[in-house]
């Protein structure tokens, strides 16, 4: 909702808008618009990250000493909202938003020096090895093994759903370093460079036809032991810390940007249509429903940001945000498919080739990619069933 801002907030917003007008090229905006998954392909996402890095805005949430901005919660929110509203390419969080907080909280000074600058600048690109074929929601049952051998670990096993492994030059992994005992024990958090001898990456094509995901196989892969974060066998606490970071963050800015595009697509579709006004009216009501749901989610997110600023523990807020945000996002993609109508069936790449003598509306082709891709939003990062379990357990314990 557009409320009055403080002078400092207005100043930042204007500064961001100026920056976007200058630096966010039409090509980058198109890449942002065409991103039907969670984040943009390496080429554009990383290019945009480097542009932000030059301005000092690539990792705004980090502590100031490592390159963060020191903004207030509201300023972070405004920044995210402006980027989303301008169709900036969504950037991969594996480096800046996932491993970096772990490095900052648990890493040695040497590890911080070694890894944080590359993440901030965009020189390095990370991927995440958490899930395994038999360990999805039940992450603690993971089996991928790392055995200490002098200054190295030797890894054997497999990781799955490894987003952008095909582009990454570094990887962080949960590995089993001790068997027996409770499954949560004996897990370690290990970082290493890829590719490396013994690593095989198998692409997994999603139902939207995209190649974002991979399965990574490890066959006697030797990696330096100084890639271990924290103590050996103490990785579970780190894993949980990361999961909470993964689930946090604001969904509303992105959802509002999506809603704006849906509204424009609906206006275009229904104004061209010679049919009766009922379909447009019925869709307007459902778009309004989504808009109100975004308002409510945004209010909870701003509340969370304020609580965070007061130093409160996140508690179940990330779980609630993940459920509400992901399901609202899925809901928007349903509306998108409905607006696309007959053109939702078209299976063509999202690029300028959609134009031409018999042009196909880009929003329509996007809509089905987004719908299919976003079916995963309630599965990844801890399924929504698991998140609801967490919320209920909290309610019943208190």
């Amino acid at each position: 909702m557009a409320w009055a801002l403080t002078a400092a907030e207005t100043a930042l917003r204007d500064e961001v808008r100026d920056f976007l007008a200058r630096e966010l090229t039409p090509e980058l905006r198109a890449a942002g618009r065409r991103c039907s998954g969670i984040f943009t392909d390496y080429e554009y996402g990383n290019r945009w990250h480097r542009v932000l890095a030059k301005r000092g805005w690539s990792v705004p949430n980090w502590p100031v000493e490592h390159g963060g901005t020191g903004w207030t919660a509201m300023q972070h929110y405004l920044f995210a909202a402006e980027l989303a509203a301008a169709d900036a390419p969504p950037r991969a969080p594996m480096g800046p938003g996932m491993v970096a907080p772990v490095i900052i909280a648990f890493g040695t000074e040497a590890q911080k020096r070694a890894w944080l600058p590359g993440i901030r600048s965009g020189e390095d690109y990370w991927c995440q090895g958490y899930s395994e074929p038999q360990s999805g929601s039940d992450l603690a049952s993971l089996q991928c093994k790392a055995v200490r051998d002098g200054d190295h670990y030797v890894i054997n096993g497999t990781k799955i759903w490894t987003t952008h492994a095909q582009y990454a030059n570094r990887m962080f992994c949960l590995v089993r370093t001790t068997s027996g005992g409770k499954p949560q024990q004996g897990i370690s958090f290990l970082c290493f460079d890829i590719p490396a001898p013994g690593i095989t990456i198998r692409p997994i094509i999603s139902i939207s036809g995209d190649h974002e995901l991979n399965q990574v196989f490890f066959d006697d892969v030797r990696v330096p032991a100084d890639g271990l974060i924290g103590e050996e066998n103490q990785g579970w606490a780190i894993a949980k810390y990361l999961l909470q970071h993964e689930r946090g963050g604001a969904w509303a800015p992105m959802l509002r940007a999506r809603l704006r595009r849906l509204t424009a697509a609906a206006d275009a579709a229904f104004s061209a249509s010679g049919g009766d006004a009922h379909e447009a009216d019925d869709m307007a009501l459902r778009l309004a429903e989504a808009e109100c749901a975004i308002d409510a989610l945004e209010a909870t997110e701003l509340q969370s940001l304020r609580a965070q600023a007061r130093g409160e523990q996140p508690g179940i807020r990330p779980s609630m945000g993940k459920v509400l945000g992901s399901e609202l996002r899925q809901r928007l993609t349903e509306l998108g498919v409905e607006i696309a109508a007959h053109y939702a069936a078209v299976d063509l790449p999202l690029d300028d080739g959609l134009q031409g003598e018999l042009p196909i509306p880009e929003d329509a082709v996007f809509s089905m990619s987004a719908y299919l891709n976003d079916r995963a939003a309630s599965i990844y990062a801890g399924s929504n069933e698991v998140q609801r379990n967490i919320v209920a357990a909290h309610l019943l314990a208190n």
Partner: protein
Amino acid sequence: MSTLTEQDETLAMLRDSLARYLDDNHGFEQRLYALRKADDAPPPFWQGLASELDLLGAALPESQGGLGGGMAAHLAMMETLGGALAAEPYLSTMVIGAGLLQRHPGAQADALLKRIVAGQAVLAFAHGEPQSRHDRADVQTELARDGGGFRLNGRKAVVHAAPWASHFIMSARSGAGLSLLVVPRETAGVRLRAYPTRDGGRAADIAFGDVRLPAEALLGAEGSALPQIERALDEATLAVCAESIGIMRRLMRDTLDYVRQRKQFGVPISSFQVLRHRLADMHMALERAAALTASVGEHVDTADHDERARAVSSAKVAAAKACKAVGQGAVQLHGGMGMTEELAVGHCVRRATLIEGQFGPPAWHLRRVAKLRPAAT
């Protein structure tokens, strides 16, 4: 930010003292007993709010004998009253009635405000008519000039708190448009059909047959009332959102207590995953509504018409959806016990269900939001 914190503290004190007073004077049985006897006057706790607590004016400007809390104070009061199922007639007297009076200062309004804050006058807002549903401009009651004063003819429908009111603020239409008038209950030609409402309160349909009023009865200029009515109803809408938050927090508390102790198949029913997820969904619906109501409450005093209308409608949609999710969930999780008069849950659900539709159901507010949408850029 420091002002906000100071205000937060004031509001917290307001909530605390009101909650304590309600605990002592408005328990489940006390409330039932008092409401059963309240055909002609509000339950005694109303007078207590004024004379013992001196809290009725919490929202009014300090210049009018209040604490200057504005909408934030109304929301704190309504939420706390909601948790004790004690909302009426704060809504009609303070949020709507005193809100309209304070925006039309003058000797008469000021005098009435004083009596209101002292608990000596109770207001009802006689606006909706049998045909008007949620349409705020659909007023057919006729206002005519009559010598130096006015003559009124028409009918108002489901005027909440009317049987308790000393005065009605009513709307009527003349050639100039909509006007608001203050009508003492005992005016000749005013006939009430009073009845209980499902939430334990009272309301009435009111016939106005050739009712004669002096010129001073008019609030503001003749024909200029629609913007005032819209603002009053938006504030009232947000106020019942806050009330619903109080009710829902009580419903969640009662339901969590119940499922923890109720056993079936040898285990507490709280161990069933389907019920756990339902609780999670109820909680999330409530938290969304609470956050949005609070956020809108912070801004609504200074917002312009469209901004206020859009925000209030959005909050009402969230609150109504939460009322449905939490209310229906609470009954279901209580099983048969949730269907009886004997537990508070049923009483809470009745009030929450009325709030879902009060001042317009979600579909009506969604349509309002859709109409207020800025053109796509």
